[in-house]
Structures are given as structure tokens and as C-alpha cells.
């Protein structure tokens, strides 16, 4: 029991959370945020990717009073406080939906599919939502 387990305390891995679903219609977007915050709490290297309908998670001006669900969009703005500052958006997904970075509620890095694919390959863990 005395030997240190591989992957024990102190080891930092690169975690990439890939968001591909719109908010509210399913629970995925909210659950993804929970995982991001847990990763941050364990001082892991966490980055977030928004592609396909996932880009809608970052749309400005969400008002959820009418559907009786918690508006969790402000959480994305708070991520920097947890040292989660790597947010990537796929350019193709943004453009397909007629959106620009001005429509998004947080600063993000916009990457093309090829660059994003290369970035994904460099991760230790990729979690899909």
C-alpha cells in the first residue's frame, strides 16, 4: 500500500471537454460544466471545445425564465475564476449557424477543423458531451 500509484496525486493531465449539443433541450451542456468544474477543482489542465450545436451554448442573451430552467450561461463567464481559460470554437460550426464571435458571451479562440483536430490529438483525455 505504500508505493505511489501511477496517476496519483500531483499528476496533471490534459482534459478536453467537447460540447456538441445545444443548451436546455438536453442535459448534456449542464453536465459538461459540472465535469469542467470538477476538473478545475483537481487542478487539471482543462480546455473546452464548442462545435456543431455546442456553439449555441455560448450565445449571448439567453433568458430562461419562460421555460423554468436555470440559466447556466453566466457560468461560462466565471470559468476564468477557476483558471479555465482555454475555450475553443470551431469556425465551421459558427459560420454554418450564421454566428460570429460577437454573438458569444465569452472570449474564445476560433479554430478551423484541421487545427482543432490536431489539438484534440494532443490531449490525454477527451470527454464528449
Amino acid at each position: 500500500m505504500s508505493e505511489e500509484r501511477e496517476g496519483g496525486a500531483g499528476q496533471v493531465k490534459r482534459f478536453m471537454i467537447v460540447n456538441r449539443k445545444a443548451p436546455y433541450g438536453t442535459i448534456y451542456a449542464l453536465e459538461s460544466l459540472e465535469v469542467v468544474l470538477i476538473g478545475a477543482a483537481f487542478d487539471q489542465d482543462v480546455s473546452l471545445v464548442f462545435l456543431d450545436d455546442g456553439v449555441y451554448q455560448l450565445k449571448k442573451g439567453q433568458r430562461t425564465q419562460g421555460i423554468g430552467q436555470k440559466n447556466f450561461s453566466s457560468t461560462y463567464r466565471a470559468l476564468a475564476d477557476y483558471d479555465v481559460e482555454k475555450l475553443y470554437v470551431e469556425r465551421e460550426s459558427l459560420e454554418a449557424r450564421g454566428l460570429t464571435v460577437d454573438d458569444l458571451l465569452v472570449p474564445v479562440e476560433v479554430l478551423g477543423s484541421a487545427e482543432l483536430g490536431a489539438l484534440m490529438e494532443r490531449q490525454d483525455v477527451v470527454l464528449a458531451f
Partner: protein
Amino acid sequence: MAVLHTTNKSPLQTRDLESCLRLSRPGCGVLLIEDAVYGALAAGTTAATLTEAARQRRIYVLGPDLAARGFTAEQLIPGVEVVDYGGFVDLAVEYHHVQAWI
């Protein structure tokens, strides 16, 4: 016997809207709810399809679902009607029956 069709999935994730529009008949109503509201955005990929469908159908969007996702009625394709929950109930009564595409 006009039918009210409802669909609740993003048109970029499933083909529910496409099937709904293909099978729905002229004179019917199509109500987009939950993630399906993205399908009615003028800037979206399904704008042309829905505009064509709207020539012979009435297209509705559930307002609370649109607002939750950060969009307004002005961003929809022309001719789409925004309804609230009460309006949803009125439509369900007004049409012969409701057919859900889930």
C-alpha cells in the same frame, strides 16, 4: 382535417424537421419547440427549406424556448408566428390533432 405537427430537435442534429416537412400536408401547422426553434432562424441552414414549406403551411415557434436560447422573433424567417404556452394549447385545440416528430 389539418394536423398540427410538432418537432423538438435541432435540424442540425437530427432529420426530424426534414421528415416532418416532407410528410406534412399543405394547410397543416408546424410548431417548432425546444431545440427545434433553431430551425426557424433566418441565418440558419434550414431557412430556405422552411421558407419554402411555409408557403403552404403555417409555421409556429414556441417563444419561451426561443428566448431561452438567446434569440428574438426578429431573427426568424419572415412569416413565422411566435406563440406562448397558451398559444400552444390554442393550436392543439384548433387543429384536428397533434402529431409529434420526436
